[in-house]
């Protein structure tokens, strides 16, 4: 009888350790995924001054838009906290879109190799940000599921693991402008 009891205890302890370690590993992956988004945002901030310098000469009549882009970038860099960061990044996305729409009106710019290169870099950066968010959401969902399902939720409750926030698009009119919803869960 004693042996059976000890065996059950051993299995329970092993399960407990495995679940705890599994949760920690998932949480770290989610944190890392979050950092990756920051890395890509920084890449975007670094690219913008280059872009503006390249187009400035040809776009004499659009100084206003250029100033807006630079201002939006500086605000995005200065932003503190997840919610404000998300808002400022979205403003920046909008300003960049406007800039590229204007570039279409300048045939010299459109055929300029440097502008083409920068445009490709920015398209790529936008994609990277998108994919980094997607990766983060996938990992965070996995982590949240692990927190909620029985019986891992008991381990999670014991060590008060907190659920990861997901990136979400809340307003359907702003589908093209992703935002962070901090109110969920």
């Amino acid at each position, binding site marked *: 009888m004693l042996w059976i009891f000890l065996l059950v205890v051993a299995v329970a302890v092993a399960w407990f350790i495995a679940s705890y370690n599994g949760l920690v590993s998932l949480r770290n992956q989610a944190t890392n995924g979050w950092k*990756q988004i920051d890395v*890509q945002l920084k890449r975007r901030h670094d690219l913008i001054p280059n872009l503006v310098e390249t187009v400035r000469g040809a776009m004499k009549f659009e100084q206003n838009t250029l100033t807006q882009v630079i201002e939006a970038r500086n605000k995005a860099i200065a932003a503190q906290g997840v919610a404000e960061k998300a808002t400022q990044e979205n403003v920046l996305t909008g300003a960049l879109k406007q800039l590229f729409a204007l570039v279409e009106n300048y045939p010299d710019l459109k055929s300029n190799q440097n502008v083409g290169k920068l445009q*490709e870099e920015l398209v*790529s950066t936008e*994609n*990277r940000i998108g*994919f980094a968010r*997607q*990766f983060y959401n996938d990992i965070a969902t996995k982590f949240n599921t692990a927190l909620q399902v029985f019986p891992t939720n008991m381990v999670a409750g014991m060590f008060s693991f907190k659920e990861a926030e997901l990136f979400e698009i809340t307003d359907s009119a702003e589908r093209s402008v992703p935002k962070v919803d901090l109110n969920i869960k």
Partner: protein
Amino acid sequence: MNIYEQALSNRRATWAVSSVFVVLFLFIGFGFDYMYGAGPSVPIFTIGALILGIVSAYSSYEYGDRFILSSTHAQPLDLEDPAQKQWQNVVEEMSIAAGIPLPKTFVIEDQDPNAFATGKDPQHSSLVVTKGLLQVLDRDEQQAVAAHEMSHIRNFDIRVMLMLSVLVGAVALISDWARRGIFRGSRRSGSRRQGQGNAALLLLAVWLVTIILAPLLSQLLAMCVSRKREYLADASGAELTRHPLALARALEKIDSRNEPTRSIHQGTAHLCIADPKGRPLNAKQGWVADVLATHPPINRRIEALKQMAYVS
């Protein structure tokens, strides 16, 4: 089966493939000792074959990717070229989406659109495209192809395929030697064999058949292993881009340019996204095609992708 189970089963498959080949080498060496060796006390050929088998299995694991890259004349990307820079960006984007380290990128001077990935694990992987692919496909389609290859890398398909392609080559080589040895070999062993029973003769017959069939069997194995993996890589690639139709379009374009990819040889055919030989066999259905093709019929793959996008 999801990508994590696939990764696990691929690690096991690597061991299985390596063991099969080592045993095969052992068997071939054993036969040589039996026929030409200096008797059971000094099994030179068996030991030689065993060492050769283990060394080639290990070196294909460790250096096989370099071997494949140099045999296809793959060059590092030229980032000054806008098309290649764009591809580099696409690959970086997909490595972010897949959450794996950035693979090394290479390009082949070939007009036929094709791509393959190789390496021993996601930390040591290479992604190769032909120039034709960069010309024919637009950005979205390139992204789909990159995602397909990322899935091969992420679930360790590349490791199994790498072992297979180098070992298939090694088996072809050794059985070629063996055949030459048998048919040209000295007759001194003839007298020693006399007087032994039917069992020995039977063993000899099995040995001969093995040597003759080994290259064929190892190729069949490689084909079978690769075919099953394409659907999964298509599906998990589409999961990364969330855009299955782009991959369907890419496959259609690759298929319509049905010339052979000349720089990719037989041994690496099963690595590619579409059969580099442009063989009509891969388009057919039925058991012959099921056994002999390296890739599933491309229209079936397109069909599956369209179903994912609810347009079929």
